[in-house]
C-alpha cells in the first residue's frame, strides 16, 4: 500500500498561522502586527499602559491629540463597555483600562490647545446627605471621566442645595446622586421633591445598594418631572449620559414621558391605597407581642460590662471573610454569562491571586489595625422597649464590672441605664427585637451582647490616596477588602461571643453558612430592616464608648472610619433577620 499524500496538516497550518509572531517575543507579540491605531485601542482594552507613551508619540505624528482620544482611545473604552456589558470583562479590569485611559489623556493634554473641547458633557455627582459611602459614586466618576465626560464630584454627605448650586454654576447636563443606606433612598426622594418644587428639569441618575429599578421608575419618577434614570452599575451611568447627549432621550419633552406612564402610575396608586387600608385594619388587631418563646435559657456571660481587644490576627479575621460578598459585591467579578465551572476558574485564575496580593499588602504595610470593643449587659424587655441595666455602685460602667459579676446579679444591684425602642412588624409574625428577651414581669434578667469593631483609620486614608492617585483598580480592591474585613471581624467576634456564651454547638461547619445565619441567635446592626433607626447608634455608643478603639459617630449617626461596624447580639434561638414594612 502506498502512502497517501497529506493535503492538510495542522502542524504546517499552525506554523504558518503564527509564523509572523517572532520567536522569543513576549505575549503581546501578536500586537506587533497591528496597526498603530489598533495597538492603542488594544492597550486600552487590555489595560496595558506600560510603554503607551511611545505609541502615543507616534500617533501624534499622524493625528491631532483630540482625534486620538475621541476616535481611537474612546473607541477602546467603548469596547471595554461592551465587554463589561456582556459579562466578558470584570470590573477590576475595566478599572485597569480606565487607568490606562487616564495615563494616555494625561500624556496628550499638554499637546492640546484647549482642553474643553474634550468634554462630551458635564455631570455633578454626589453621595447624598447623611451617607458616607462613596465607592459606587467614585466608580461612576472613573468610568465617565475616562469616557470623555467632565465630572464634578462633590464627595459625601452633600446637601441638596450644594448639589443644585454646583449643577447651575457648572451648567451641568445632569446630576447623579448616590447612597448605600436605605435611609439614602428617602433622602433622594426628598431631594427630587425639592428640585421639582424649584422647577428644575435637569436629568438625574440615581444609584446605590439599597435602590431598586422599581423604586426609581415607579415611585421616584412620580415626584420629579425631569428625566430620571436608575443606574445599576457604572456603565449604566455612562449610557445615561450618552442617551442625554445623543438626543436619544428628549430631555425637553419630559412631560410626555411622565404622561405616558401616568396610567401605570394610577394603577399603582390604587394598589397602594389598598395595601395601606389593609395595613390600618391589621393595626387595630395588632397584638402587643409576637409568639416568640419567653422561656429559653439565658446563657451565662464570662463577665458583665465591656472590654476592648486590640491584639487580633488578620489571618483569623480573614477566615471569616465572605468571599461571595467581596468578589461579587465589592469587586464585582460578575458571574454573568458564565457557567459555575467557568466562574470558578475565573476566581482561581484571577481573583484569588488578587486577594492574596492585597492581603499581603495589608500585612506588609500594616494598613489594618483591627480593634474590638464588646460587652455583655443584663437587660429586660418591656413591650417594644429593651431596657439595659448598669450597676448601681460602679464608678465607670465602661469596663468589666467589678460590683456585678455573673452569678451575683440581682435587681437591687442594678438600675436602668438606657432603653432601645424597636419597631414591631405590622403583620406577618408581629416580631420585634425586644420580644427575644425576658420581660420585666418575669423578674428574670436576660442578656444582650453589644459590639463595635473597626479595621482602623489607615485603610480609609490609604484607599483615598489610591483614588486620588488614579490607581482605580487597587482602589476598588483595597476598599472592598477593608469593608469586608470589618464585616469579617464582626462575624468573627460574634463567633467568640457565641463560644463564650456556650451557644455555639449548632454553628454551621461550613463557613459559608455562617454568613446566612448558620448559628444560634442573630446579630443586628442599626439601619437594617429589623432595627432601622440609625439614631440608636448614639445609645450603643453610650454603652460601649467605641471612641476607645478610635471609632466616632458623625451627626448623621455614621461611623468613622467607614470600615467599622456595630451590632447587638441576641442569643435567642428564634432570633433571625426579619423585615419591618
Amino acid at each position, binding site marked *: 500500500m502506498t502512502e497517501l499524500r*497529506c493535503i492538510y496538516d495542522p502542524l504546517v*497550518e499552525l506554523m504558518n498561522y*503564527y509564523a509572523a509572531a517572532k520567536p522569543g517575543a513576549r*505575549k503581546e507579540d501578536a500586537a506587533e502586527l497591528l496597526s498603530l491605531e489598533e495597538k492603542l485601542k488594544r492597550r486600552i482594552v487590555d489595560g496595558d499602559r506600560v510603554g503607551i507613551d511611545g505609541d502615543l508619540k507616534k500617533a501624534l505624528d499622524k493625528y491631532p491629540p483630540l482625534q486620538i482620544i475621541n476616535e481611537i482611545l474612546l473607541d477602546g473604552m467603548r469596547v471595554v463597555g461592551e465587554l463589561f456589558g456582556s459579562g466578558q470583562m470584570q470590573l477590576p479590569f475595566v478599572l485597569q483600562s480606565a487607568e490606562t485611559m487616564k495615563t494616555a489623556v494625561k500624556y496628550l493634554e499638554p499637546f492640546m490647545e484647549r482642553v474643553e473641547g474634550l468634554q462630551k458633557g458635564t455631570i455633578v455627582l454626589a453621595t447624598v446627605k447623611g451617607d458616607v459611602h462613596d465607592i459606587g459614586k467614585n466608580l461612576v466618576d472613573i468610568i465617565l471621566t475616562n469616557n470623555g465626560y467632565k465630572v464634578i464630584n462633590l464627595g459625601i454627605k452633600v446637601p441638596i442645595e450644594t448639589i443644585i448650586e454646583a449643577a447651575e454654576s457648572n451648567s451641568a447636563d445632569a446630576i447623579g446622586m448616590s447612597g448605600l443606606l436605605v435611609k439614602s433612598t428617602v433622602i433622594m426622594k426628598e431631594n427630587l421633591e425639592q428640585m421639582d418644587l424649584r422647577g428644575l428639569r435637569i436629568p438625574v441618575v440615581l444609584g446605590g445598594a439599597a435602590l431598586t429599578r422599581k423604586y426609581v421608575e415607579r415611585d421616584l419618577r412620580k415626584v420629579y418631572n425631569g428625566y430620571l434614570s436608575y443606574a445599576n452599575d457604572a456603565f449604566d451611568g455612562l449610557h445615561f449620559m450618552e442617551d442625554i447627549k445623543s438626543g436619544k432621550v428628549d430631555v425637553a419633552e419630559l412631560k410626555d414621558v411622565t404622561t405616558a406612564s401616568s396610567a401605570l402610575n394610577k394603577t399603582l396608586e390604587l394598589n397602594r391605597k389598598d395595601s395601606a387600608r389593609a395595613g390600618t385594619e391589621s393595626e387595630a388587631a395588632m397584638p402587643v407581642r409576637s409568639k416568640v418563646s419567653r422561656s429559653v435559657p439565658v446563657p451565662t456571660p464570662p463577665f458583665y460590662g465591656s472590654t476592648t481587644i486590640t491584639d487580633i*490576627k488578620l489571618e483569623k479575621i480573614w477566615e471569616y471573610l465572605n468571599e461571595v460578598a467581596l468578589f461579587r459585591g465589592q469587586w464585582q467579578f460578575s458571574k454573568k454569562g458564565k457557567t459555575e465551572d467557568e466562574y470558578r476558574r475565573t476566581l482561581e485564575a484571577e481573583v484569588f491571586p488578587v486577594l492574596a496580593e492585597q492581603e499581603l499588602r495589608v500585612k506588609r504595610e500594616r494598613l489594618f489595625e483591627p480593634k474590638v470593643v464588646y460587652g455583655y449587659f443584663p437587660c429586660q424587655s418591656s413591650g417594644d422597649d429593651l431596657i439595659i441595666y448598669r450597676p448601681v455602685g460602679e464608678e465607670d460602667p465602661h469596663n468589666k464590672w467589678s460590683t456585678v459579676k455573673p452569678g451575683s446579679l440581682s435587681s437591687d444591684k442594678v438600675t436602668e441605664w438606657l432603653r432601645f425602642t424597636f419597631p414591631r412588624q405590622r403583620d406577618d409574625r408581629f416580631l420585634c427585637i425586644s420580644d427575644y428577651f425576658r420581660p420585666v414581669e418575669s423578674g428574670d434578667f436576660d442578656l444582650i451582647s453589644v459590639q463595635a469593631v473597626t479595621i482602623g483609620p489607615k485603610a480609609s486614608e490609604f484607599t483615598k490616596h489610591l483614588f486620588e492617585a488614579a490607581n482605580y483598580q487597587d482602589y476598588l480592591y483595597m476598599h472592598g477588602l477593608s469593608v469586608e474585613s470589618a464585616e469579617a471581624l464582626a462575624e468573627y467576634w460574634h463567633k467568640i461571643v457565641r463560644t463564650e456564651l456556650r451557644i455555639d*454547638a449548632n454553628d454551621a461547619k461550613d463557613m459559608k453558612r455562617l454568613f446566612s445565619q448558620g448559628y444560634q441567635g442573630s446579630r443586628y446592626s442599626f439601619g437594617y430592616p429589623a432595627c432601622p433607626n440609625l439614631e440608636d447608634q448614639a445609645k450603643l455608643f453610650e454603652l460601649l464608648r467605641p471612641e476607645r478603639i478610635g471609632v466616632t459617630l458623625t451627626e448623621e449617626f455614621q461611623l468613622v472610619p467607614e470600615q467599622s461596624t456595630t451590632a447587638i447580639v441576641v442569643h435567642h434561638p428564634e432570633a433571625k433577620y426579619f423585615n419591618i414594612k
Partner: protein
Amino acid sequence: MTGQELLEILKHKVLVFDGATGTSLQMQNLSAADFGGESLAGCNEYLNISKPEAPEKVHRGFLEVGVDVIETNSFGATSVVLAEYGLADKSYEINKRAAQIARKTADEYSTPEYGRYVAGSMGPTTKLPSLGHIEFDAMRESYKVQVRGLADGGADLLIVETCQDLLQTKAALAAIHEYIEETGNRIAVIVSITIETMGTMLMGTEISAALTTIEPYDIVTVFGMNCATGPKEMEENVRFLCENSPKPVFVMPNAGLPENIGGQACYHLTPDELEFWMKRFVTEFGVSIIGGCCGTTPDHISRLVKVASQASPKPREISYAPSVASIYSSVALHLDPPPVIVGERCNANGSRKFKELLLAEDYDGMVQLAKEQIKEGAHILDLCVAYVGRDEVRDMREVMNRFNTQVALPLMIDSTEYQVIEEALKRCAGRAIINSINLEDGEERMKRVLPLCKKYGAAVVALTIDEAGMAKTRGKKLEVARRIRDLAVNKYGMREEDLIFDTLTFTLGSGDEEFRKAGIETIEAIRLIKHEFPRTHTLLGVSNASFGLNAHSRHVLNSVFLYYAIEAGLDLAIVNAQKIMPLYKIDERGREISRQLIFDERKFEVAAS
C-alpha cells in the same frame, strides 16, 4: 503495644492520659540534693536516677484517679537536652529508668480486665532544626537512643509530643522508623504538635500543613495536639482535626493560658471548665484520647476519667484530601478547578536564569525566583539543582536550607540521585513530592527511592518508562503504570494516593511520524489510569508538547494541550504558570488548529482505486 492494638482499644473506649509531670514534680518542693547536686537542679529527667520516688509519686497520683496511660518522666531525656547538664552520655540509662519506673507503677494498678499503659514521652528538645540549630542526623541519632531506652525499659507506646518544628518531628519519626526496621518491634506512636496562641506552630506551621505532613506516616497511629493553650483556644484546631484527620485525634491542653505571677507560671482553668471542654471535644467532635498538659493536677484528670467513662466519642465523618505541604501551609494534590500548577523555573536544566543563579551561588536570587513563581500562580515548585560538574548533594543542601523556611509553597524534589533526594528530605519540614521513579532499570530505582518516601512521608512521581524505554501508546503507558502501582503498593507499602503518574509528553512540533499520535496517547493514558486507579494522581510536563515551535505557537499549543489533558483527568501540570492562557483568550482559528494537531486530524487525498 502495636499501632494496630492501640486502634483496637480506641474502638471501644476513650483513653485518658495523665496530667502535668513537670508541674507535679515542682509541687513536691524537691531540693538540689534530690536532683543529685546543684549542677543538676531542675533536670527533672535525672530524678529517674537520683530520686525515683519522685516520678513514681507523680505516676501514682494520676493512676489513683483512674487514668489509662501514664507518661514516662523523659520529656527532655534526649542527649541534645541532657548535654546542657553534662549528661549527654546518660540518655539511654535515664530513658530506660524512666520507663521502668512507670512500668512498675502502672503494673501495680493493672488488672487483666483493665490494663494501664506506659507512654514513652519524647519532647521537642531545645533546638529547632529548621532554623539550623542542629543537623537533622544529629537530632535523629539523639532520638534513637531515647527510643531504645524507652522501649527497653518497657514503654507500651511512644509519644512524640509538644512538637514545635515539623523537621524535629520528622527526625524523631526517622529514629523510630529505624528502630522498628532494626528490631521488628512495631511499637505504637502518637504525634502531638503544639499550636501556639498565634494559631500556628512555633515555626508558623498551620495545622493543615502539620496534618498533611504527619498523616502519610503509617508508623504513626494517632495525631493530635498538646500544650501552649487551654482547651478553649484549641477548639477550632481540634474541630479541624476531627473533621479532617484519618488518624484518631489526641488532645492534651494546658490548664488554661499560663499567667505569669511573680515569675511563676500559674494556670487558672478549673477542673469544671476542663471537664466541660473535653466532654465537648469527645461528644461533639469525636476526640479519642484526652489528657492534661501543663498545670493539670489529679483533680483535673479525675474529671477526664469521668468524661471517658460517661461519654462516647462522636463518630467522625472525615474529608481528607491527599495533599503536600511546605513548612507553612498545605496544598491538595487535586484542586477544583484543576490543575495544581507545579512551577518549573527552579530547575537548573530547564531555566537559564536558575542555572546562572546556581552557578553564581546566588541563593537569595534563587529564593527570589521561587517567590516570583508564587506570584505567577504556582501551587507547588519543582526544584532541580543537578548541573554537570557540580556537587549536587551540596547544592541541594544549601538551597533546601533556605527554601524550607523562605518559600511558602510545597516542593517537588527533582533528582535522579537518591543521595540528593535524601539530603533534600532531611531539610524539608513539610511534605514533599519526589520526582521521580520509573522502571528503566527494572525495580532498581523504586528500591532506592520508595523506602525514602516511606521514611520521610513523601509522595512520588512515577514516569511511564520501563526496560523497553518510554511508553508511547496508551495501552503501554497503562501497563507500566499498573506494574509500578502494584510494586509500590504491595511491596513497598505506598498508598495509591501517594503516587503521581506522569504519562510523558512528546513534542508535536517535530512533524515526526512516530509522534503524530503522541498527544492523543498521552491524554488517553491519563483517562485510563484515572479510571483504573482513581485514587492515584496524574501529572504532565506540558511545555514539551510544543518543543521546536515558535514562542507564540508554543504558548497557544501548550494551553490547548493542557485543556484537553485536564478534561481527561489531569491533576497536576508542570508549567510556567505565566505561559498558560485560558482557552477563551486564544483566537478561534489558533485554538482549532491546535486541537487538530493534538488529535492528529490530518487530511489525506482519497486513494485512487
